[in-house]
C-alpha cells in the first residue's frame, strides 16, 4: 500500500473547559472514501477545521504525504489540495454559478466571463449534471448549490475533498446523484472525507469508517467488515437501549389540536397531541419543522389555520400570547433565540415571568431568587452561582437554563426544537431524562429533531414533514428508521 495522502498525529485542541480533540492520530489513503462518524460534540468538525487550517491545534502535526505541518493555514491547506464543503455553503449568492466556481482562482485583474462560463460548463459536463453556469446562485435549490460547491472543489484540483453532512439538505434522488459524483471523483484518485450522521449512507459509499467520541479517536473499521450495530455502540459507547428513559405513564386526552396550518412554506398541516405525550416531528432540513414551531408559538405570522387548546380555539399572534396559553418553545438556536448569553443565569430563568410577577413595576427579587434556586437544584444546573453569565456555561447547562425559563412561565405544552444539538453525550442523557420526567408529570412535548435515533427513542408517535407538507403519522409500533426517512424524503 502506498503512503497515506494525509496523516494527523497526536492532534489536540482544547477550548476552555472542553477538549475538542484529544490526541488524535489517524490517516487517510489516496482515493478512498473515508467516513467520520460520531455524535454531536464528538470532534469531527474540529478535526476537519484543523485539517483545513480554519483553526490552530494546540499540539500535534498534520502531514501531507511528506510535508509536515505543525500548524495549518487555509492557504497551505489549499495548496495541498484540501477543499471543504461545509454544511453552510460558502457561496456568494449574488454572483453567477461560474463566478462562484472560479472564485478562489488566482488570476489577473480582469475576469473573462465567457471563458469561466465555458470552463464551468465543462466541469458540470464531467460531473454529468445539468446546471446553467450563468444562473445566479441565489436562485438555485440547496442540492444544486451543493453541486456548485463540488464543482468549485473540482476546479481547484482538490485532492482531498471534505464533505460535512453533505446529504442533509438533499432528498433521496439528489443524494443518489451526489453519490455518483463522489464515486467518479474517487476513481480519479480524490480522497473524500465524508461526515454524516446517517449510518446507512456510510455503508453505501464509504471504504473505511473512523468513529470518534468526545474528542477521542475510537477506531477505524473497514466498512465491509462492520455492522450498523457495532458502529452505533462505538459511537455512543454503550448499547442504544438504555439511552432513552422508560416512561411510567400513558398519554392522556388531547390537549392541543392544530388544523390546516399554513405559512412560511408549510401547507395545511394538521395534527393533535395528547397530555403526557411526546410527539416527534421528523423531516429533513428545509422540511418546514422549525417554521411550524415558529407559527405555533406565534413567533412568525401564519397564513391560515387554527390552533385549539384544551377544546378552545386560540388565536396566537405573539410569543407572549403563546406563553399565556401554556405553550413554551425551546428554540433550536440556543445562543441567539433561547437566552441572553451575557446576562446571568437568574435573569434568564425569570425572563418570561418578571413582568407578570412585578407589583407596580417593582420586580419581586425574593421570589426570583427562589425560582432560580429551585430550578438550579431541580435540573442540576452546574454553575458556580446564579449570577454567573450564561455564556460561561456548557451547552447542556445552557439548555437547562432555557428549559427552566420556559417552565417557570408555567407552560404545559413544550415545543423542543433540536433539544440536544451541540450537547455532549452525558448532558444529552440528562436532557432526555428531564423530558421524560416532564411528560410523566403530565406535560406535553412536541419534539423536532434531525437525529433519527433520538426521535425514535423518545417519541410516542411521529409526524413526518417534507417540503412543508404533512406526509403522515407513524405510531410507535411502526417505528422504523428506513420507513421514516422514506416518508421524509417523500415526493421531491
Amino acid at each position, binding site marked *: 500500500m502506498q503512503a497515506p495522502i494525509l496523516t494527523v498525529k497526536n492532534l489536540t485542541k482544547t477550548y476552555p473547559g472542553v477538549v475538542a480533540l484529544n490526541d488524535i492520530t489517524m490517516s487517510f489513503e489516496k482515493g478512498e472514501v473515508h467516513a467520520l462518524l460520531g455524535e*454531536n460534540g464528538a470532534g469531527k468538525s474540529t478535526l476537519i477545521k484543523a485539517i483545513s487550517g480554519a483553526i490552530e491545534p494546540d499540539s500535534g502535526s498534520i502531514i501531507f504525504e511528506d510535508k509536515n505541518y505543525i500548524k495549518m493555514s487555509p492557504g497551505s491547506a489549499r495548496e495541498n489540495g484540501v477543499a471543504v464543503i461545509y454544511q453552510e455553503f460558502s457561496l456568494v449568492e449574488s454572483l453567477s454559478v461560474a463566478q462562484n466556481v472560479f472564485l478562489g482562482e488566482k488570476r489577473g485583474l480582469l475576469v473573462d466571463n465567457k471563458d469561466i462560463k465555458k470552463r464551468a460548463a465543462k466541469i458540470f459536463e464531467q460531473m454529468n449534471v445539468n446546471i446553467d453556469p450563468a444562473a445566479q446562485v441565489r436562485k438555485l435549490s440547496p442540492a444544486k448549490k451543493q453541486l456548485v460547491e463540488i464543482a468549485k472543489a473540482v476546479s481547484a484540483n482538490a485532492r482531498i475533498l471534505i464533505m460535512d453532512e453533505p446529504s442533509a439538505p438533499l432528498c433521496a434522488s439528489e443524494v443518489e446523484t451526489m453519490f455518483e459524483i463522489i464515486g467518479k471523483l474517487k476513481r480519479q484518485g480524490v480522497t473524500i472525507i465524508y461526515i454524516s450522521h446517517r449510518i446507512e449512507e456510510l455503508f453505501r459509499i464509504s471504504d473505511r469508517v473512523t468513529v470518534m467520541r468526545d474528542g477521542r479517536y475510537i477506531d477505524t473499521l473497514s466498512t465491509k467488515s462492520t455492522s450498523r450495530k457495532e458502529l452505533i455502540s462505538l459511537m455512543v459507547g454503550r448499547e442504544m437501549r438504555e439511552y432513552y428513559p422508560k416512561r411510567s405513564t400513558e398519554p392522556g386526552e388531547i390537549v392541543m389540536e392544530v388544523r390546516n396550518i399554513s405559512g412560511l412554506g408549510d401547507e395545511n398541516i394538521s395534527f393533535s397531541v395528547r397530555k403526557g405525550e411526546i410527539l416527534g416531528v421528523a423531516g429533513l432540513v428545509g422540511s418546514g419543522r422549525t417554521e411550524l414551531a415558529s407559527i405555533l408559538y406565534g413567533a412568525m405570522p401564519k397564513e391560515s389555520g387554527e390552533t385549539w387548546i384544551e377544546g378552545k380555539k386560540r388565536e396566537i399572534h405573539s410569543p407572549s400570547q403563546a406563553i*399565556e396559553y401554556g405553550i413554551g418553545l425551546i428554540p433550536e438556536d440556543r445562543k441567539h433565540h433561547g437566552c441572553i448569553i451575557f446576562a446571568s443565569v437568574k*435573569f434568564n430563568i425569570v425572563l418570561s415571568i418578571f413582568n407578570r410577577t412585578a407589583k407596580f*413595576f417593582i420586580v419581586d427579587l425574593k421570589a426570583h431568587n427562589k425560582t432560580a434556586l429551585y430550578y438550579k437544584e431541580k435540573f442540576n444546573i*452546574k454553575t458556580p452561582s446564579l449570577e454567573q453569565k450564561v455564556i460561561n456555561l456548557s451547552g447542556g447547562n445552557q439548555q437547562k437554563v432555557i428549559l427552566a425559563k420556559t417552565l417557570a412561565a408555567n407552560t404545559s405544552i413544550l415545543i423542543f426544537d433540536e433539544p440536544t444539538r451541540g450537547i455532549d453525550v452525558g448532558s444529552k442523557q440528562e436532557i432526555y431524562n428531564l423530558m421524560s420526567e416532564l411528560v410523566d408529570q403530565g406535560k406535553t412535548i412536541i419534539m423536532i429533531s434531525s437525529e433519527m435515533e433520538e426521535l425514535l427513542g423518545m417519541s410516542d408517535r411521529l409526524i413526518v414533514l417534507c417540503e412543508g407538507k404533512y406526509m403522515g403519522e407513524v405510531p410507535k409500533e411502526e417505528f422504523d428508521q428506513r420507513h421514516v426517512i422514506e416518508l421524509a424524503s417523500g415526493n421531491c
Partner: protein
Amino acid sequence: MPKINLRGVQKYAVMFILIILMVLFSFSSPYFLTIRNLTNIITQNTYFIILAIGLSFVMIGGGIDLSVGWQMSLVGVVTAMCMTLYNLPVWLSVVIGILLGTFLGFFNGVIVANIKVFPLIVTIATSTVFQGVSYIISQAKTYRSYPEEFLFIAKEKMLGMPFDVWLTIFIVVFASFVYYRTSYGWNVLALGGNEEAARLAGIKTKAMKISVYTICGFFTAIATMVMIAKANTTNSSFGPGTEFTALTAAIVGGISFMGGEGNMLGLVTGVFILAVLGNGMQLAGWGTYAQYIVKGIILLGAVSFDELQKSFRGKTRKPAPDQAPTAKSQ
C-alpha cells in the same frame, strides 16, 4: 438584581481615570483644584448627565439616538418662544417643551421599531428633519431673557445646592432604581441583551423599543430646560453637538454600545471625565479645538475597549466545575 450591569474592570477603571486626570490637571494649573472651579464643573454638566441618562435607555436597549442634539435645539426654541414671544406662563411653556421632546422621541421610536434599518441612520435622518423644523420655527432668531420663575431651575439654591443639581441627583437615583428594581428596567436590559430571545420569552419588544426612544426624548427635553435656563438665551444652534458628548460619556462610563448593560454611576463618572478634560485643558491653555481631537480619540478608545471586552468575555469562559461542556466546534 441582574448582574448584567456590572462590568468588572471598567467600573473601577473609570473612577481611577477620573482621579488621575484630576491629579494631573491640578499640577498643570493652580486654578483647577479650587472649590469654585470644581463647583463650576459640576453645575456646567448637569444637563449632560440628564441627557446621557436619557440616551442610556436607548443604548442599554440596544439602540442609538444621534438626534438628541437637534431635539434639544427644537425643544429649546419652542419653549423659549412660548415664554418670550407668546408670553405663556412658565409652567405651560415647560409642559409644552417636555411634551414636544417626548413626542420627538416617540417619533424616532416608531420609525426605528417599524422599519428595520440601523437606528444610527434613522436618527441621523430625523435629526436633519428636527434641524429644519427648528430653524423654520425659530426663524433663525435668538430668544433670551426668560422669566425669573424659569431661571429658578439653574439659579435657585436649595440646601446649599442649585436646583438643577438636585434634579440631576434625583434623576440618577431614579434611573438606577428603574434598572435595578423595576420590570421596565429589566425589559430594557433584556431588549438590549438579545432582542429575539427577549421577544420569544414573551417580552413585547416592539413596544419596548418605542418606549426607550420616548423616554430618551423626555429626558432630552428636561436637559434642554436646564441648558437654556443656565444660558438664559437660546437659538436653533443650541443643542447640536451635545449628543456627541453624551454618547462619549455613556460609552466611557461603561454603557455598552451593543446594549444590554450599563450602570448609572459609571455614566456620571463618564460625563465628569470629559468635563474635567475640557476644563483642565482650557485652564492649561490648550484651547477648544485640541479638545475636539482628544474627545474623538477618547470615544474611539472607549468603543474599542467595549468591543475588546465583549470578545474577551466570550473567550475566557470558565466552565462550571466537574463538567465537560460541549465541544464548541460543533
